[in-house]
């Protein structure tokens, strides 16, 4: 990919029960999706038909029934390497991203699994390197405590260098032991798998800490960014691309993709109706104890879905209302800055305000205060405009599309939005090659064990 002709990149964040906490309750949603491999293959094929760069398989190394109202998709699901290999057999072009946490793996295993997946998929394998923010995972891996960020990144930095050397250790007929002796790892090699078709597996990374940004700028080909608003996203984008330069990397060497939940329908009204239906299924919390709050929060809940949480955030005591009550305009007037932002986000998504014909309800406020403020809801042109605006402002190189529920939101995006972006010349009409690196416009890297600069190290 040349720098003057940028092209959008799309991933599909594959939470089988949907990225919306109530996605699975939609009438057409497949509620058994997380363990239904035939259905997962079908959705992957829809994304491939829309020429997506990749399918993103997340992971979390612990489970808790408490997730059922917040993140059912993350509570229980197939192990990512297993899903990925099964999906590879049912597809031909789409990249397949597997999340694996080096904190709880040996580099040989990850190199082994990813290299093998790359062969089986014909060069479509990718590794999302996460270091694990979940404290409760430690209890499933005989650890007394969750490592702090510095330790996790020191470990990950060495881990990824070992993995790259292992990928390079059996190249054509040339077999080279790696004899790695580092702070954490001692690995002789070679790997028992020949060098992957892509040379090195495409590496994804996500995170906002300084260590994470540095790892991403040095080692990642794709960065999955948080983008609460376009200003924050632009700052993040600039920072990563600037950091990457000191490692000799070009802007086009890293694709930065924030997550984006898209609810699209032929008309704005229909899209908002879908969004409202999804939200109507969300189970609200009773006013509860701090202990419960902590327990749910540890696994991804961004806040309780109740009016105490709303009151705390907006600085106005609104407890005692029914969820379907209309919010009094005075509440907006009295709200603090965070409150003002919540109201704006609600209006952006639902087109409702505190005055006029279509009014904001307390349910809207409760959901926004619990963290449900992202994404885009609208007709195909509105959604395409949003994507184009962020892309051209260099706030991103594309998006990791969050399917609120499956398969309908994926089908709708593929059928309604993709053709507009293709028509505008922003997005590929077909794959230029069979590998994930091809989709990203990345060269197959040289063998680092063969390169003299590394041999001298």
């Amino acid at each position, binding site marked *: 990919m040349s720098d003057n002709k940028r092209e959008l990149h799309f991933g599909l964040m594959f939470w089988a029960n949907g990225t919306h906490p109530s996605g699975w*309750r939609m009438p057409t949603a497949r509620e058994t999706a997380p363990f239904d491999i035939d259905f997962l293959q079908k959705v992957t094929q829809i994304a491939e038909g829309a020429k997506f760069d990749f399918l993103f398989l997340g992971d*979390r190394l612990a489970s808790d029934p408490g997730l059922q109202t917040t993140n059912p998709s993350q509570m229980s699901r197939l192990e990512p390497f297993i899903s990925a290999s099964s999906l590879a057999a049912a597809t031909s072009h789409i990249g397949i991203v597997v999340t694996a946490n080096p904190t709880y793996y040996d580099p040989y295993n990850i190199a082994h699994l990813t290299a093998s997946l790359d062969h089986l998929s014909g060069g479509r394998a990718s590794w999302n390197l996460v270091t694990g923010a979940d404290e409760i995972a430690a209890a499933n891996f005989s650890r007394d405590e969750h490592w702090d960020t510095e330790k996790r990144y020191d470990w990950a930095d060495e881990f990824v260098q070992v993995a790259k050397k292992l990928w390079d250790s059996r190249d054509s007929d040339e077999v080279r032991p790696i004899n790695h002796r580092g702070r954490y790892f001692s690995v002789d090699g070679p790997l028992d798998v*020949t060098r992957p078709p892509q040379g090195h597996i495409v590496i994804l990374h996500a995170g906002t800490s300084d260590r994470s940004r540095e790892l991403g700028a040095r080692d990642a080909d794709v960065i999955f960014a948080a983008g609460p608003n376009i200003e924050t996203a632009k700052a993040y984008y600039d920072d990563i691309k600037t950091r990457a330069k000191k490692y000799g990397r070009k802007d086009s060497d890293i694709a930065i993709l924030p997550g984006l939940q898209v609810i699209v329908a032929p008309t704005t009204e229909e899209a908002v109706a879908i969004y409202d239906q999804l939200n109507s299924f969300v189970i609200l919390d009773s006013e509860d104890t701090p202990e419960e709050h902590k327990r749910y929060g540890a696994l991804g809940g961004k806040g309780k879905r109740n009016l105490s949480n709303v009151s705390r955030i907006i600085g106005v005591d609104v407890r005692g209302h029914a969820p379907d009550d209309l919010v009094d305009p005075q509440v907006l007037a009295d709200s603090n800055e965070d409150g003002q932002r919540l109201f704006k986000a609600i209006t952006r998504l639902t087109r409702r305000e505190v005055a006029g014909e279509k009014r904001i309800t307390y349910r809207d406020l409760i959901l926004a205060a619990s963290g449900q403020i992202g994404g885009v809801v609208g007709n195909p042109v509105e959604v395409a405009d949003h994507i184009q605006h962020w892309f051209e402002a260099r706030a991103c190189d594309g998006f990791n599309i969050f399917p609120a529920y499956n398969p309908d939101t994926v089908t709708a995006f593929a059928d309604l939005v993709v053709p507009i972006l293709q028509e505008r010349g922003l997005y590929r009409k077909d794959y230029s090659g069979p590998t994930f690196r091809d989709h990203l416009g990345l060269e197959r890297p040289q063998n680092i064990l063969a390169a003299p600069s590394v041999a001298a190290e």
Partner: protein
Amino acid sequence: MSSSLPLVRKPLKFGYTYSPNDISDAFNPAQLAAQAKLAEAGRFDFIRFTERILSGEGGEARTEPFTTASYLATLTRKIGLIAQASTSYYEPFNLARLIASLDHVTHGRAGWDVATGASRVAHANFSQGENSAESHQTRAVEVIEILRQLWDSWEEGAFIRNKATGEYVDGNKIHPIHHKGDLFRIKGPLNVARSPQGHAVVTQVITDDIAADLAVREADLLLLTAKAPAELRAEVDSLRARLAGRNALILAAFTPAADNGRTIADRIEALAETAQLDGVDLHFNAPGALEKYVAEVVPELQTRGLLATEYARDTLRDHLGLTEPANRYAAA
């Protein structure tokens, strides 16, 4: 066949231990897929994929067993898919997830071939010092116990998925395991639902007394290395005595020579009778050999009733006549 020999239980079970030498390019997924489909056409009960970090030097490079088996899960319908993995080089929580998930994507056709890993070459790849065979064995025993607990940690019926009420799971049917052993502390529960077979079929190759001890305790399927029939018979008798009636099958490795179909079928039949095997685990080690076997030997075996003509049911446990293990949490 001599009528003085005890009769074997017909039909026999047939396994296929894949070697990368069986196809011309072991990293060509189309060739792997064709090989698996061929084995399924030959009505093998399972294919077993081995990893090589355990055997050290020598042999051919190959794709990793879990990814290979799950790739082929999509492209086959009936044949069992067994992945070898070492208890010494995986975290138990990861291993439990991989195996349970393989059982899901195969719709109940998964097996796990337990390797306990004692090769110096393998240690050197896992930042481990050299450990005794006994210490690997101790680790294996604890790992298998953890896996079985984790596989039980979601009861059947843990999922409610009631769209009308919004109840997704029944928390009372999801169990932390709170394992505290000599080597591992695992809280659980697993983050994978109970798999179609409950527990994947556990296999082990009997390479020595230590392996035999573990297999007698834990394995559903005991795989013996190739030996003279009389020697095998002694081994089988000893293992059956130690199994003490536990429902497990004993198969022995067999590599067909370049004979005609009838001769090979004769040998398989004689081997099974003499050694009182439940079946044989075929090895080929040459491209085209499986194809020839399926064309020439399989019909002969089927004519004699030694090999079933179709898969009667769907799971690997079905093929092998093994029942699903009870869930330790459900009965209470």
